[in-house]
């Protein structure tokens, strides 16, 4: 008796004593290995940098929503998938990549991380916590059919409100729990939370193979602009090394992203660097890239430094749409209407204001702020990632299994093919049913906005070797680009003497690194010389051929500080030439056959050019980034139908033009305020101060 009581007591002691020293600032290490002082280079080390593809946005069973959607895959399963192995979708089919990835990061939602598996497990004490009932046995065998969808939706909605209001409750309780507000929440068990977080870190360590496959310890900081508005402000936090805090800093600690950055600053002082990667700015209702700070004050250089130090890259494309630009923001861009997801995140079909929610406009706003001498908080690079909630990203249009597990794992559930009789019965009967249906030529379809999901995206980095250190520094120097899921290969350099480069020289890359700067860099003015850019792309061997290379330029008017953008085609496929008046390639005539998704035999396997800005003003701050466009091809909505011997649904968006976007190169005039404010955070420099 006494012994048992001691045992119980001991576990409480550990729980609370750790709970109260501030665990979010308490570092531990997932490896016992000592890092060598001068780590030897791995076999593939390359001064001219190698290209690595990855996904830094992956949810497993430890995310509250993924678990509710039926996902029981562990972080180990996620890494198995990324390395080329096969894992199970919650609906039972296999998911496997046709080509493994080079790096992967499990980023589960930080708040309530790990809790839901235990709330559901009726043999676990956490399942008796108040509020746990709706989740009991939610993923028990036999409960994972499509007839469980309504229950899952209700469970999700239930937690959505509980967490939103629960958060408010804990704020007025905060005094006694100031180091860990989550402890005051009724449906929370700190032991469960920490154990899951530890497993995430240790799994990253177990699966890290320097030189071959890189993992990052990370999580998602799932916040928004407030209870009523719900503008999405989600960020993924990635840590640089095997070290990690005892618990993640979450929206329960604060919903203000600036508090997250302060915490990251503190960790940096303790010797652990990290970056936060904002995503789904498209669903932020214009709140992601504002010209004000959280408290409404105007942003200044200090804010710009603060933000750039913590957020050097942004995820501009993923399953919930792309955030490069919006037709309303870029009316002169014929390709702006790409994978637009017009809603706020987690708020059904509530409209999200595009103004302030898209990357290209943010770059312009940054230049505008700089013109006002307030620094540039938006000088970030880009990557893509999936945001999969099944541990396995779905990147390929012809093999898309969507995002939310049991809820959208089959074409019929995504509204791309009609429901069978049996499916209709399962979805339309039963308690609290939340499905609605529409009648079309070919039968009854689920009426859902899942058809707006996107088979996107991937993060591409240029790094010396496939190690955490090397890839993390690529993120920091923004030598990265994003693709909408395909593995388009892209090199991009800016300089003043690139016209002299021999494009067919084997030394091309070496010369480019010597005489120019790569994507993500600043290009400092050289007299009044016009900059030129080397753009070089190869198609994904499994995807459609390339149609054109484009430069997207944005600049500030030196007179009034207004900002502008313009699209220039830089290279065309099929031997076509850019029209010097319109700056457009002629139509190459590429077509898609919606009956079988075949495409015409047009386009290029490789495009390479040097482009010089024809309308250059040496005194104006400017940014230049590349957009690579493939030929049109079937979107997954068409593939779903074709793969199931159906006719694609005419009222859906059926054709896509997959693409890649580079991180920009910023031109810095010698007169610019930027010349003395660069805003790039260099940890090495920081540590010497």
């Amino acid at each position: 008796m006494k012994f048992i009581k001691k045992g119980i007591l001991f576990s409480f002691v550990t729980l609370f004593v750790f709970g109260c020293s501030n665990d979010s600032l308490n570092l531990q290490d997932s490896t016992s290995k000592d890092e060598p002082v001068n780590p030897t280079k791995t076999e593939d080390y390359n001064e001219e940098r190698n290209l690595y593809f990855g996904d830094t946005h992956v949810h497993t069973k430890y995310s509250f929503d993924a678990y509710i959607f039926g996902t029981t895959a562990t972080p180990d399963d996620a890494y198995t998938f990324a390395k080329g192995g096969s894992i199970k979708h919650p609906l039972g089919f296999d998911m496997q990549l046709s080509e493994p990835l080079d790096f992967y990061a499990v980023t589960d939602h930080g708040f309530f991380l790990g809790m839901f598996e235990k709330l559901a497990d009726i043999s676990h004490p956490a399942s008796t916590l108040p509020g746990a009932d709706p989740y009991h046995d939610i993923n028990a065998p036999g409960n994972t059919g499509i007839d469980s969808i309504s229950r899952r939706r209700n469970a999700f909605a239930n937690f959505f409100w509980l967490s939103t209001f629960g958060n408010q409750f804990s704020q007025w309780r905060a005094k006694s729990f100031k180091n860990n507000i989550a402890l005051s929440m009724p449906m929370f068990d700190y032991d469960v939370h920490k154990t899951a977080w530890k497993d995430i870190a240790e799994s990253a360590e177990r699966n890290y193979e320097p030189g071959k496959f890189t993992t990052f310890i990370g999580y998602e900081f799932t916040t928004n602009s407030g209870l009523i508005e719900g503008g999405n402000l989600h960020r993924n936090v990635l840590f640089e090394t095997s070290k990690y805090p005892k618990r993640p800093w979450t929206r329960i600690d604060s919903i203000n992203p600036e508090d997250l950055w302060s915490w990251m600053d503190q960790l940096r002082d303790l010797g652990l660097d990290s970056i936060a990667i904002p995503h789904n700015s498209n669903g932020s209702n214009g709140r992601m890239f504002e010209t004000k700070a959280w408290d409404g004050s105007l942003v200044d250089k200090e804010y710009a430094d603060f933000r750039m130090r913590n957020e050097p890259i942004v995820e501009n494309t993923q399953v919930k749409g792309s955030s490069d630009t919006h037709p309303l923001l870029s009316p002169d861009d014929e390709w702006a209407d790409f994978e637009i997801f017009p809603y706020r995140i987690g708020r059904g079909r509530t409209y999200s204001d595009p103004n302030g929610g898209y990357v290209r406009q943010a770059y312009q706003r940054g230049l505008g702020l700089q013109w006002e001498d307030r620094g540039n908080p938006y000088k970030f690079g880009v990557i893509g990632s999936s945001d999969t909630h099944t541990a396995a990203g779905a990147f390929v249009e012809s093999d898309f299994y969507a995002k939310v597990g049991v809820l959208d794992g089959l074409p019929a559930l995504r509204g791309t093919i009609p429901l069978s009789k049996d499916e209709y019965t399962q979805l339309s009967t039963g308690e609290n049913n939340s499905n609605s249906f529409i009648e079309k030529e070919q039968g009854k379809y689920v009426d859902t906005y899942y058809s707006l999901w996107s088979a996107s995206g991937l993060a591409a980095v240029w790094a010396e070797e496939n190690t955490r250190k090397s890839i993390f520094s690529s993120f920091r120097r923004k030598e990265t680009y994003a693709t909408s899921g395909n593995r388009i290969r892209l090199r991009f350099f800016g300089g003043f003497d690139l016209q002299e480069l021999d494009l067919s020289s084997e030394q091309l890359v070496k010369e480019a690194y010597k005489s120019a700067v790569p994507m993500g860099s600043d290009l400092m003015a050289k007299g009044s010389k016009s900059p030129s850019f080397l753009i070089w792309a190869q198609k994904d061997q499994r995807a459609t051929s390339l149609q054109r290379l484009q430069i997207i330029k944005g600049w500030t008017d030196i007179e009034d500080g207004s900002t502008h953008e313009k699209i220039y085609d830089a290279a065309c496929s099929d031997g076509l030439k850019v029209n010097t008046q319109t700056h457009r390639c002629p139509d190459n005539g590429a077509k898609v056959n919606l009956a079988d998704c075949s495409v015409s035999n047009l386009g290029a396997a490789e495009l390479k050019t040097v482009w010089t800005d024809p309308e250059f003003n040496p005194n104006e701050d400017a940014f230049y980034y590349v957009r690579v466009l493939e030929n049109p091809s079937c979107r997954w909505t068409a593939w779903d139908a074709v793969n199931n011997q159906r006719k694609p649904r005419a009222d859906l968006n059926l054709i896509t033009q997959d693409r890649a976007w580079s991180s920009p190169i910023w031109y810095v005039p010698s007169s610019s305020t930027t010349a003395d404010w660069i805003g790039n955070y260099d940890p090495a420099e920081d540590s010497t101060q």
Partner: protein
Amino acid sequence: MTKKLLSFLCIGLAILLLDIWFDSSNQDKNIVLYDDEILSLIEIWTAQVGRPPNEEDLKGIINQLVEEEILYREALKLGLDKDDIIIKRRLAQKIGFLKQEEQSVPPTELQLKQYFESMEAEYFMDTRFSFTHLYFSKEKKGAERALNSLKQLRNLDTIPDSDPFLVGKNFLNKTAKQIARDFGEGFSNNLIEAETGRWIGPFKSIYGSHLVKISKVVKARKPNYDEVKKAVLLDYLLEKKQTEMRSYIEELKNQYDVQINPKFNYP
């Protein structure tokens, strides 16, 4: 015989009575709180709230502990722990965890080696090629240029008129699968029986034509134990855990007599 049986019963009765008496007086209705228990509760409270408890707080803390203990014992008396599925599962889980944590004896080198030998196929290493290549873009008549260059290379050893390849020129120790990522499926078939140390080709990829010079081929092989030591250890521990748990359960199962209604009918 009767006498023996009687005295046996008497002694038994005495033990039973003693047990009941001790049980009720010493355990059932006695709650002893030791100093260190209270002290650690105070510590928890202080850490959690940020100040030490005052007298009233302390009363509350102790009272809560006492009440919980009393309710727990009363619940046991009423047999509430019996036939409760949550408690059953929790206990089953607990013994499972304990059992799994139990084995901490590290395996010997010999055991690991034997395991490695028995799982040979799992650790088999694919053929690896190291090579350099010359690329001739198909956008610029690559097939033709590649052929010409090959002739030149073989005859004169001039510098060929090749193009740079986006992801590089030299490839070290790549498997067929890795080669497929940059050159397409099947490209490595060209390299399998090929000569090393001289230019061969041209071979087609989706980007154009390639001349290849293989510098080294490491044939598919069984690795040395030392090369895969780390993976072997991880696999061994995982498997050992599983088999030990399995055999533990099987062993216990043998001691039980399981009866199921033979006429049970699943509707």
